[in-house]
């Protein structure tokens, strides 16, 4: 039996509604067909797949693909396991004069966490690559916005030094 091609279900492609901090002055193009609901474990795999796909198209190194996919896994898995409701995964291509990259936003309206910065500041947390600190170490830019009861939005970026055509 032949394996059918993977079909990503079409979803809402409108830009994410969560407030996103602007770190640098660059253009962003949200990838159509890549706004995925995150509700179950398979969605984690799908988000990983889409991220790898986009990063491969931009010509990222295999090691970067692995790191990025791992970071996506960590964040989306958090939504599935801890948010208490479904979340949204969104990926966009970013570029400025010098380079190109990917920006990924994973947001939910779930339980949220108190003082999310402690996950970033405390190097002892997630020493074995778990959770937010593990993800933070794997990407170029990491930002988390969260408060109890209001949900969580994680923004991650990876950049490629040389711009690709």
């Amino acid at each position, binding site marked *: 039996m032949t*394996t059918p091609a993977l079909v990503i279900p079409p979803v809402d492609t409108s830009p994410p509604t969560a407030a996103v901090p602007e770190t640098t002055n660059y253009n962003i193009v949200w990838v159509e067909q890549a706004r995925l609901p995150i509700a179950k474990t398979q969605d984690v*795999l799908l988000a990983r797949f889409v991220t790898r796909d986009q990063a491969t198209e931009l010509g990222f190194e295999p090691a970067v693909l692995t790191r990025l996919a791992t970071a996506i896994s960590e964040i989306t898995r958090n939504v599935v396991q801890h948010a208490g409701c479904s979340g949204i995964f969104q990926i966009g291509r970013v570029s400025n004069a010098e380079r190109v990259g990917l920006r990924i936003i994973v947001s939910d309206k779930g339980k949220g966490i108190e003082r999310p910065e402690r996950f970033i500041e405390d190097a002892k947390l997630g020493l*074995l690559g778990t959770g937010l600190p593990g993800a933070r170490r*794997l990407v170029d830019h990491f930002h988390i916005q969260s408060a109890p009861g209001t949900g969580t939005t994680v923004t991650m970026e990876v950049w490629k030094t040389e711009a690709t055509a």
Partner: protein
Amino acid sequence: METEFLATGDGLSHLARRLANIQQECRSLSDLAMGQTQDAAVQFAFQLLKKAEDLVLASYDQYDHLFATFGELQQRIALLSKQHEEIMRVLLPLNFITMSLRIEASRQPAEAQAVFVSLAIDLNRTVNEVRATLEQQIAGFHAGELIIQALVQEISASIQRHRLEVTTALVTSRNHLRAFGDALCNAGAGATELSQLNHAVTKHIGGIVMAQQCQDITRQKIEHVGEAMDEIRNQLDDSRPAAMESGLGTRQFVLHAGQIQLEQVQGVFDELNRAADSVKAGIQGLRSDSGTASDAAVKVGSTALDETVANLCQNGISGILAIIDQAVLRIAEILAAFEPLQAAFINCTTKATSLAGDVRLAALNAQVFAIHAADGATLEVLAGRVRAVSDDAIPRVGQMGAELYQTAQMVNNLGQQLADFQALGKVERDILTDESVLSKEKLAQLEGAIPLMVERISCQQVAFAQSVDAVLAKVQFPTTVAETRSRSLEFFEYLVTWGGADGAGLAMDAAASGNIDRLRANYTMESERQAHAAVLLTGLPLVRAATGLPSSNLLNDVPSAPAADSGAEVFSAGESMPEQPMSEILSASTTIPSTPQPTSVAEEPAEEVALGANVELF
């Protein structure tokens, strides 16, 4: 002594180099062990484990969905069976109706008889086709259901087993990875502790180097003072006859000046001894701390990684990947099992719809023929009954068709979902397999690198401790100082014999006393310390620049001795000082009267002040 200083200095710089190497190794070990690099092996393995777990959990989700769909499918097939039975029951009267049609048709003319017999045959065929087709399809559904049921039961049993295996493998692998990570953290913490201890050792070395510098300066001064004493002695020997004639004052001044010189030299010796003690204590402290550091290195070594841990971690990941492989294969089996069932549902839906049309057509034909028959009242009634059966059967068949369509859609969706998951699972499995190979390499590298680094650090630490012992053994300052001290005492005894030939007291004139006081004031250990501090702060080159002299010649430039330059009074040969214990002479030197006393050397105070001033340079 200079050789000894140089040897100690070499030893210290050797120690510093060794320490720097150890520190570098500690930093590398700490970095490696604490996983500060992005792709640290344990983090990578841990994340790989979690990704594999994602895939396993996602496959369980798929199975759960499959079980739920299968449950629904069973209900639908049961409903279809029921609907099939109802349709058969509705169509059952058609057999009797067609028989009645045949009987009634036999009363009609031959042409009409043929038409109605043909109609009856069509109706019978249609009913038989419906019955046969539906029974066949329903039987097919049941057969498919049984196959899938067997598969589902098998999957369910294997999932129970796999869940247990995966849970155990995950827990075990996590525990192994945690143990591995803890061992790494301990090794890293040990390396950090070792690094801190070695940092303390570095401070010791710094302190020793400072003491060495002080000692070296003092050593130079001692040597210069010694040279000055030799020169004084030579000049005194040359001028002894004249001095013996010139009177007691000059000899007394020389004696006092010698006393002061001796005091000063003794003070310098004390300083040198203290500095030597400081060096020795520093090196002993260094030895003690390096011993502690060695212990710490051993401690780091004792956290050496259990070589089976990495393999166990890797085996856990491999085990999970094998389960993922099975899951992907199972999904292929499920897809294969659902494929004929899916086709059967679609086929059955088409046929059921077609049969419903056939029954309706037969009923319409019967009605049309009945109207055109000459005596068709009975036929019309029969045709009406066919129509009624048809009207009853058609919505039921339609309902069953709709049910079949929905079931077919459900099976189709499940098939598509499973196919998607199979594709995704294959991609993930391939990636995870590659990553697993990479992880194995990383863990193996780490596993190999850390014990080697620990061993290197331990060896270096041991070598360092041995070097410290060697440097410590070379420190013989007190012996050397004692030898030099005896040389200065000997010089003073010579002065005593030179200056006190006629039993001279310690009285002298006011000018000589003033010169002695100025000499004493400028020629103190406080001045020495200030000079040392100035040298250490500004560096010897600055002193050289300030004086315009090379450091080794600084003291040589000092006027040989006050008495030598004064040359006013000469003692007669053969005169000697009375025998007096050295301690008394030294204690007497502290009771020099402050009142001015006439002396012949008062004529040349400038040279004496210059002596003090020059001494201050050091």
